[in-house]
């Protein structure tokens, strides 16, 4: 096997130059997705009329179709919409001036929103009703009960799946190459084709993603251990 080890070592710094882009896409989609997720989860938990079926269809659609199709739909559909609206409103703004990475931000955020809504929902539903009642019984108002009692417990229970969603978005960010955003994966492609060293480039990319994934798992594991002290068992 002609694995060029010295080249492999040279590839790392090249790929790492694209690390900020990968992390930025992941961070944006997870944060915006979390906000969307909270809204969608609230709509579903409180069964808000009219919005409820929309929320359910949104989650169903996103989870039933590949991430790639969302990206394409946004990439080709959004400009039509934006240009249509802009010319309707008489603005000179055109979709062509939207930076490409924004298409990744938007479509991945919409995607993350559907997944985050389930993370938030499962977390909130896992909190026992008695906990809220006890909070009310000692005189807390709704906001105090949510902030002091419900959210911390919901966060603790949903932390593992939250971490998996973050990892999912990290891995999903590799699709950004299809809209010409240079993330780690795209960078690996560039390095591979210019040097004709495909194997080395993708080994390096795989190692970087593997490392990032393990880091995310370690960090959440650590947080989990700290905030889950209260679950250390004993007599029920």
């Amino acid at each position, binding site marked *: 096997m002609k694995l060029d080890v010295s080249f492999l070592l040279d590839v790392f710094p090249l790929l790492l130059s694209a690390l900020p882009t990968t992390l930025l896409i992941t961070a944006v989609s997870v944060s915006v997705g979390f906000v969307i997720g909270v809204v969608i989860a609230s709509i579903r938990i409180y069964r808000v009329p009219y919005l409820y079926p929309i929320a359910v269809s949104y989650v169903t659609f996103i989870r039933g179709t590949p991430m790639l199709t969302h990206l394409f739909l946004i990439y080709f559909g959004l400009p039509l919409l934006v240009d249509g609206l802009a010319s309707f409103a008489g603005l000179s703004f055109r979709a062509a001036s939207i930076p490409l990475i924004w298409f990744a931000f938007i479509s991945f955020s919409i995607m993350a929103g559907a997944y985050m809504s389930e993370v938030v929902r499962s977390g909130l539903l896992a909190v026992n009703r008695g906990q809220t009642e006890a909070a009310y019984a000692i005189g807390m108002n709704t906001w105090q009960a949510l902030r002091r009692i419900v959210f911390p417990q919901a966060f*603790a229970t949903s932390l593992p799946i939250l971490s998996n969603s973050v990892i999912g978005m990290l891995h999903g960010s590799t699709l950004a190459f299809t809209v010409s955003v240079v993330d780690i994966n795209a960078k690996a492609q560039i390095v591979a084709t210019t040097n004709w060293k495909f194997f080395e480039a993708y080994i390096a990319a795989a190692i970087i993603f593997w490392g990032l994934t393990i880091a995310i798992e370690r960090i959440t594991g650590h947080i989990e251990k700290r905030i889950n002290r209260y679950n250390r068992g004993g007599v029920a």
Partner: protein
Amino acid sequence: MIKLTGITKSFGRNQVLKGIDLHVNKGEVVVILGPSGSGKTTLLRCINYLERPSDGQIVIGDSIVDCKRAGKQDILQLRRKSAMVFQQYNLFKHKTALENVMEGLVIVQKRPKEEARERSVQVLEKVGLGSKLDAYPSELSGGQQQRVGIARALALEPEVILFDEPTSALDPELVGEVLEVIRKIAKEGITMIVVTHEMGFARDVSNHVVFMDGGVIVEEGTPQEIFSSPKEERTKQFLKRITPEWSYTI
């Protein structure tokens, strides 16, 4: 002083409370008895608005709440005058025994942390848990958890503490320690309303016994009146059924 007037509560078509009037004086220990489904727990939950009564009026101290017109602030004020001890303890799972007791003092009553801590430690010592301040609920036995629950209620110095079957979820050997604590604080002159099946406790500790059935108060009086010479047929039957197996005293 607590005064309930014409409290009704329906779940859908099912009317669970059919007009309850109840008067509790300061320092009184009132026990509510009754078969399951008689509405006694619902009544208790209505008093601090964990259930919203359909109609009626609730007065605790200087808080007067008209159930048909109760706003958020009214409910909050009412809740801050009472405290509740739950059947399933409902301790905040993510907080230690001490934090459970401090929570209401710091967050609701806005007391300074140091003062809240001092007060909480004092109350936890009173219920015999001075050595378990930093234990999480999952590390405590049922009896210990319920004693923290009592301390949490007691620390708030409410006008009344509501007990919802506080020993029903406990293993038999743990019932005693919890009843002992309730008995102790009852003697200090704290107003209490207790829903329970512990007849011995009702007889020894309460000043006033209320018997409920089918969503109404069938009969009420001193423990002697209710236990020795009940007037109503339904009370007699209930006591006959329940007394033999529950007659132990502690």
